[in-house]
């Protein structure tokens, strides 16, 4: 692909022209870092979510062996002490350097807020977004955001957007404000800084929440030719859209707003905004635990069917050739539907990583297997789980690998270390042991037997952190293979797409009962370990939704 683009930068190209504006599509994200280094991500694909800048449960040496190509950094955790510490790092790749991502493997994007955090927040202002740090709410202005971006130089940046996270529903006035602010903040980010070689690749959050007219209006404002002082700001660009690499959709605020509208519709006395505190809906009724107030994973109803028209309304006026990204997708079924009906290119992996937090090993493929895998639990609706709740005692004696299919992750295919550190008088000249067969070096790495479900079950019940490391490695690998399956089908037999999506939906349970059950058991094991641990777990879940608390 060299010669594809002579200058450094991030480029998205469609490999197959999509049959329709919103149909499934194959694409390629190319990051050309410099003469020697480029990263390619075939789409549809995923990005890994982070917490406090790191991929929860993975060591840096696992970053390289995992298939992760894109990590997104919510920047707000660095706002507790100003200036934010990543802005103080020297060099032209300060985020990569500081956070340990590889220049040759990882595209690093930066957003002010964690898109998975749907907690109610103080309202944004005309010139600030309310963000959340460990020490409380922080205001971030467009100017500050731009300066953080230019200091940290991420490969991709999410423009500051006015996403209302006060209590929905929102008035038309509020939506108009949201649109105007988002457009103006985008303009401020893409206006070039003089004497600066760095040009951020910008993704814009498509404003308008659940209003089709508002969404369309925002999209149209992107392609309008600007005049007057606004035009001056973004010169030499003529429209905002010219400064944008792609479009992004955070689903949580949309779902919250849809949910509020539905409740309002069902109940005319549904309290209006500001009058009630946010009570997250209960997760499971059958939970045997009395601690109903400890709701670590509030479930927001998906409202998937209502999403597509909204996303389409935003994309309708815009060019089809730019990247389309969705944050906080909840199920693989939803991924397939958003590929089918909207043509989304990148999805966040938050849900699959969170599954690793609560003890679920994912086990599904696309296309779905032709014969039912007996290893998976079938539900009352006759559908199979998309994974295994390894807390469940049925795995105590199950020595098979996490997934049914072969998997190259470091949990299913651990690789014996090719080298080790010597500390003094322990090298082969003293120990007499051959150093991993030097005659064959660099030999094929030796793959060891898989870690078993029984082992992960044991680690979960004994509260060993290694359980989550193994599960996250595995789940991201399953997700990677899932997207690989999607791309292969779109490449080789696109005519089969609709049929295979339907078959997937028929075979696998979308209600994710296995996740619910795992969350209950995860909480109960925590309870058994004592209150201190649970309190920290709760705090951890409030500060960011990925990862589990460190057991002290």
């Amino acid at each position, binding site marked *: 692909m060299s010669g594809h683009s002579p200058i450094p930068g991030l480029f998205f190209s469609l490999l197959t022209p999509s049959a329709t504006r919103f149909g499934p599509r194959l694409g390629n994200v190319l990051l050309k870092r410099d003469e020697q280094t480029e990263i390619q991500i075939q789409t549809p694909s995923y990005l890994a979510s982070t917490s*406090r800048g790191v991929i929860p*449960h993975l*060591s840096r040496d696992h970053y390289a062996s995992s298939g992760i190509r894109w990590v997104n950094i919510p920047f707000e955790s660095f706002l507790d002490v100003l200036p934010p510490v990543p802005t103080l790092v020297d060099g032209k790749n300060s985020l990569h350097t500081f956070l340990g991502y590889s220049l040759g493997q990882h595209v690093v994007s930066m957003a002010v807020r964690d898109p998975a955090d749907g907690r109610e927040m103080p309202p944004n202002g005309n010139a600030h977004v309310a963000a959340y740090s460990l020490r409380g709410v922080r205001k971030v202005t467009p100017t500050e955001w731009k300066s953080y971006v230019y200091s940290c130089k991420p490969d991709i940046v999410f423009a500051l957007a006015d996403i209302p996270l006060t209590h929905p529903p929102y008035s038309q006035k509020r939506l108009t404000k949201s649109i105007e602010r988002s457009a103006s903040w985008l303009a401020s980010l893409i206006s070039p800084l003089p004497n600066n070689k760095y040009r951020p690749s910008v993704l814009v959050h498509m404003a308008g929440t659940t209003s089709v007219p508002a969404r369309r209006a925002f999209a149209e404002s992107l392609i309008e030719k600007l005049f007057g002082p606004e035009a001056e700001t973004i010169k030499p660009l003529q429209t905002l859209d010219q400064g944008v690499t792609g479009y992004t959709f955070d689903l949580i605020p949309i779902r919250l707003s849809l949910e509020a509208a539905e409740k309002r519709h069902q109940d005319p006395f549904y309290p209006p905004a500001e009058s009630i505190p946010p009570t997250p809906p209960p997760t499971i009724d059958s939970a045997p635990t009395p601690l109903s107030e400890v709701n670590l994973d509030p479930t927001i109803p998906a409202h998937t069917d209502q999403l597509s028209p909204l996303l389409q309304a935003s994309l309708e006026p815009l060019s089809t050739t730019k990247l389309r990204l969705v944050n906080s997708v909840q199920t693989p079924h939803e991924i397939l539907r958003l590929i089918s009906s909207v043509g989304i290119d990148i999805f966040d992996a938050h849900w699959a990583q969170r599954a690793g937090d609560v003890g679920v090993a994912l086990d599904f493929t696309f296309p779905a297997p032709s014969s039912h895998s007996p290893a998976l639990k079938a539900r009352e609706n006759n559908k199979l789980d998309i994974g295994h709740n390894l807390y469940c005692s049925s795995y105590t004696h199950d020595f098979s690998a996490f997934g049914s299919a072969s998997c190259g992750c470091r949990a299913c295919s651990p690789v014996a*270390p090719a080298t*080790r550190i*010597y500390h*003094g008088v322990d090298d082969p000249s003293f120990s007499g042991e051959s150093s991993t067969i030097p005659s064959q070096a660099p030999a094929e790495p030796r793959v060891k037997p898989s870690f078993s479900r029984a082992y992960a079950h044991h680690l979960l019940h004994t509260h060993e952190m*290694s359980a989550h*490391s193994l599960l996250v490695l595995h789940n991201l690998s399953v997700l990677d293979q899932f997207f690989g399956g999607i791309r292969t089908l779109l490449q080789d037999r696109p005519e089969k797409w609709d049929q295979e999506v339907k078959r997937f939906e028929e075979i696998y349970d979308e209600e994710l009962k296995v996740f619910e059950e795992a969350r209950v058991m995860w909480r109960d094991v925590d309870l058994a370990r004592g209150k201190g641990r649970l309190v920290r777990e709760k705090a951890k879940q409030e500060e960011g939704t990925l990862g589990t608390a460190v057991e002290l």
Partner: protein
Amino acid sequence: MQFEVIAKCKTTKARVSRMTLSHGVTMLPTFMPVATQAAIKGLTPEQVESLGVTLILNNTYHLNLRPGLKVLNEVGGAHKFQGWERNLLTDSGGFQLVSLSKFTTITEEGALFASPFTGEPTMLTPEESISIQHAIGADIIMQLDDVVSSLTTGPRVEEAMERSVRWLDRCTAHHEQSGKKDRQNLFAIVQGGLDPGLRDRCLDAMIQRKNDVAGYAIGGLSGGEEKDTFWRIIKQCADKLPEDRPRYSMGIGFAEDLLVCVALGVDMADCVFPTRTARFGVALTHSGPLNLKLNKHARDFDPIDKNCPCPTCSGKTSRAILHHTTTHETSAAHAITLHNITFQAQVMGRARAAIIAGTFPEYLRKFFSDYFGDAGYPEWCVNALRSVGVDLLEGKDLKLIPGSGAKWEYSDAS
């Protein structure tokens, strides 16, 4: 087991040996990281092996509860269960029984305790302990001993010591007839509390049984006794134990304790300290522990130790990002654990190299000087090392710190 002493320090009692077990060679002296529940906190066995660790410890009491013997038998032992291909040591389960279970009573038959699952009275006999350890399949297994706190005084200490000798005989008999002797090596545990007379009697009795045991542990310490007493007991035991058997000091993990024990003739030690302290954000370094939670590290872009070969330091993970994530993200615990295990291995590896090179006394002096700086040395270390001919204070004018003298970075003020 093959055990060969390959070098001895000309001044102290320190020695370097090669211990060959079923899962490879471990060079001694060594520190064993503790994988209580068949995992080193957050790490994979591949990561642990790549740090140069060749011997880890699993706890019998815990593995017997979970995953339980049925699982371990089905899978073919703890090595396979956790994917660990190097050497493994298990304790007898007795220590945990006494420290974790309030209602344990010791009889001549064994330790009677309430099952943590059912509350039923359950008996752990010496034979049962060995059988459990056979199922786990560790390369080194421990006799069941009658554990009393090192603060216990009076006739109970003598009773426990004598019972431990009788239980050793039951363990060796049971081990003998198991057919596992070629792959699993039984260690005796010297008891006798803080009473030199009792320790001597225990040593005599256990040394008589040398042909039945592969090595000796020094038990009944690290339970809050005075450090000055601690080192004298270690010295007494190490002096008397046979040359041609490894000596294992249980529950020792601070760097200064390790080096004193090595100088007194100890070959192996274990402790949860380096992995536990990592979770709280404490990184061990050759110039003393660093508490990465402290704000003074928030903007420090240096790694924990520029010269450290661990993945965390060689990968240039900064103190600042560790400060940002420590106690919040498990990956911070992983990163510091990787470092701390490497640090322990380095302390011991440099000791081995110095013993071979004939420079062990110089290494001790340099280590203490780097580690404690001008803050003063623990008095007990100075006394212990003087007893084997090394004067830490040679050419120095430093104050001596009474008590345990462990070095900690407590607050932002330090």
